């Protein structure tokens, strides 16, 4: 292997100094809250990393995830990393199409058997034999099984891939499922979010490239570094929440003064993601900072929490009919019980009368 086959070498060729590159390494490490000892290791590991074969599969998705990851606001090191990894197959990004594209995928799989990473965005339809999404006559499910078979690891990017997302939302017409339900036995990372934060994606990849293993994951297989805390935990509006100062509408005084958005439906308290710290668009802002509550986009079934503007502490269902019915039923039971009691009493009074007659 040529010495410049490494990431550092590639960077140098593009005019990025080794120093600058190591700085980037520590930035990633700090984003991931790695211990100081690991910072250098990551930077060094990243510098020495070699091209990694990646096969990107897109199933039932909206391309939002790809957009998020590739259309960063300015050319950044993230882009460079994407350039560096060998994207051997990506429907949206690759120039070739049709049979040629499928051929490229098969070639990459054969060449990197057991070493390539499969990145998936979108969920897989399972209903009716999976006919709702096919590529070249093959269902998503078939392609996934085929591709994953010889992979080193699977990365599900976006909530669709990680948890089913929009396609799986009620009533889930295509029988969409999360990738994790179909790839048992392979190392698996979920980078959830709709779309996910680019840094979460690159951070996870950088970690794998540097250390050759998966980063620490939470119970939903998300890297703890990016999904270890809730939006609410790190939200800069939190002091308002604690003081009980809330926006009641998007155009009221509270909203203008930047008060907490809980009452207008913010799901921050139960949403694990790093929007509040890493932010979006290169650290410019994040939804709450822009005045809108968190939708809970990195959590399973976030589409089905009764609406984005329904406060977290309210019931999901419509209560009216149930409660009215219950009240009626209760009244009927109450009257019934009282009648039964009265008949008990009458019975007794009748027996008293009989006694009197006897006398």
């Amino acid at each position, binding site marked *: 292997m040529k010495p410049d086959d490494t990431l550092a070498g590639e960077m140098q060729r593009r005019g990025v100094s080794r120093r600058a590159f190591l700085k980037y390494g520590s930035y990633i490490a700090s984003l991931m809250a790695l211990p100081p000892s690991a910072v250098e290791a990551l930077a060094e590991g990243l510098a020495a990393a070699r091209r990694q074969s990646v096969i990107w599969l897109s199933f039932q998705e909206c391309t939002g995830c790809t957009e998020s990851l590739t259309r960063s606001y300015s050319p950044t090191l993230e882009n460079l990393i994407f350039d560096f990894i060998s994207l051997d197959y990506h429907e949206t990004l690759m120039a070739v199409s049709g049979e040629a594209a499928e051929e490229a995928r098969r070639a990459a799989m054969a060449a990197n058997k057991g070493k390539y990473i499969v990145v998936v965005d979108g969920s897989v339809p399972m209903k009716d034999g999976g006919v709702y999404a096919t590529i070249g006559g093959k269902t998503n499910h078939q392609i996934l099984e085929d591709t994953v078979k010889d992979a080193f690891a699977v990365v599900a990017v976006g909530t669709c891939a990680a948890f089913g997302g929009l396609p799986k939302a009620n009533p889930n017409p295509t029988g969409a499922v999360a990738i994790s339900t179909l790839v048992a036995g392979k190392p698996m990372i979920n980078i959830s979010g709709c779309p996910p934060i680019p840094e979460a994606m690159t951070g996870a990849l950088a970690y794998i490239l540097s250390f050759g293993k998966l980063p620490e994951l939470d119970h939903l297989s998300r890297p703890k570094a990016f999904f270890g805390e809730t939006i609410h935990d790190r939200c800069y509006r939190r002091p308002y929440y604690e003081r009980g100062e809330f926006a009641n509408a998007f155009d009221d005084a509270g909203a203008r003064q930047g008060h907490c958005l809980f009452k207008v439906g913010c799901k921050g308290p139960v949403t694990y993601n790093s929007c509040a710290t890493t932010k979006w668009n290169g650290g410019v802002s994040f939804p709450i900072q822009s005045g809108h509550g968190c939708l809970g986009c990195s959590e399973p079934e976030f589409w089905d929490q009764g609406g984005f503007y329904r406060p977290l502490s309210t019931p999901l269902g419509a209560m009216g009919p149930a409660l009215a019915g219950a009240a009626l039923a209760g009244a009927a039971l109450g009257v019934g*019980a009282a009648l039964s009691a009265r008949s*008990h009493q009458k019975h*007794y009074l009748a027996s008293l009368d009989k006694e009197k007659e006897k006398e």
Partner: protein
Amino acid sequence: MTAKTTASGAAYDVQGDRADTERRDAAMQAFVRDFARTAAIHMESCLRCGMCANACHFYVTTGDPKYTPINKLRPFEQAYHRHIGPFAPIYRLFGLKSNVSIEMLQEWESLIYDGCTLCGRCTLACPMGIDISELIKEARHGMYKAGLVPDRLELMDRTAKAWGSPASPSEDFADIIRDAGEEHGVPMNIDLPKADYVVTVAPAELTEHTKALSDVAKILNKIGASWTYSTEGFEASNIGYINGDLPLQEKMTRKIIDNAIRIGAHTLILPECGHAYGAARWEAARWYGKKLPLRIIHMTEFLAELVTSGRIKLKKMGETTCFHDPCQLVRRGGVTEAPRAVLKGLGLDLTEFEDHGELAWCCGGGGGVVSNVRADPLRFKAFSIKRKQVEDAKTQHFVTACGQCRITLTLGAKHDKWDQKVESLLELVADHLED
């Protein structure tokens, strides 16, 4: 009649020779009959907070938790939940509330009769306002039906049925009245065919306090009222009311009311007796199902009316006194100011007990407890509260307005070998009439 004890050592008496299940069913049915809306609300509401315990002289003086007022209602409660409460059908369906057992009723006999004077102090302590004493009174209906009543009370019941009074046969009444008149030199009216006021009496007045009979007469004569005693309806104390013998209660009430109506009286004067007031003033109309055409007032109310309206003038005594508020009259009857007005009229300077008026402690003998010899030890314990109150008051007189209280207090003092006279408001008024 046999005196027995339960496994836990509680004494109970049994009347009649019916089978246990029959007794139990009789009790259950009678319990069930009593649950009107108010009783049911109260049966639903207990918080098990225990506040009522601190109000009851029997708990306070024995420290025995079984005297906690709400505990005395256990069988009654069980009957309620099994047969009347809103969830009764469910309880029965799943067998969640068992039927009251005969053992339980036996065990509770002494709690319901010996251990409760129906004083109602617990009602004032209950944060939910549960009228516990009213419920205990109702629970007695079932106990009576079951034939599980203290023998002494049952004896009075039978005597009252036979004689028309638990103290003396009706035939003797006229003689007792005439004797009292002669003894105290007061002209008596007996069995007049028409009168405005009919005066009724309590058992104590037919035996120990016969002076009360002539005292009333003296006052009525003084104001020139048209009044009479009546052999046909003289006994105002209502042992049926106390024992839970509803037919007898009705009979005794009807007797005095019907008689007063026959005579054309506009007012029926009740004697210095608390339970008589409860039975007649508040419950008489229930037997008629309508408003009664005459006024029913307690002796104390009558005296207060005369004193405050100036129809009688009293010699001022200029001494100090304390006053025992009879529970049925004051706490449960609302006659709180009347006795105080009379004491004032007598020129007696009243030193109130720390707990007085509606909060007064019971004498310990109401609700038939004073007649129920089996309860004597318990009653004497309860008496200690009153004794301390009287001693702390340090007054020249100790007055009350209920003959039963007076007997209870006198007996208590005697048992304690404590030299303390208990005086009657009526007697004091009669003795201090200005000519």
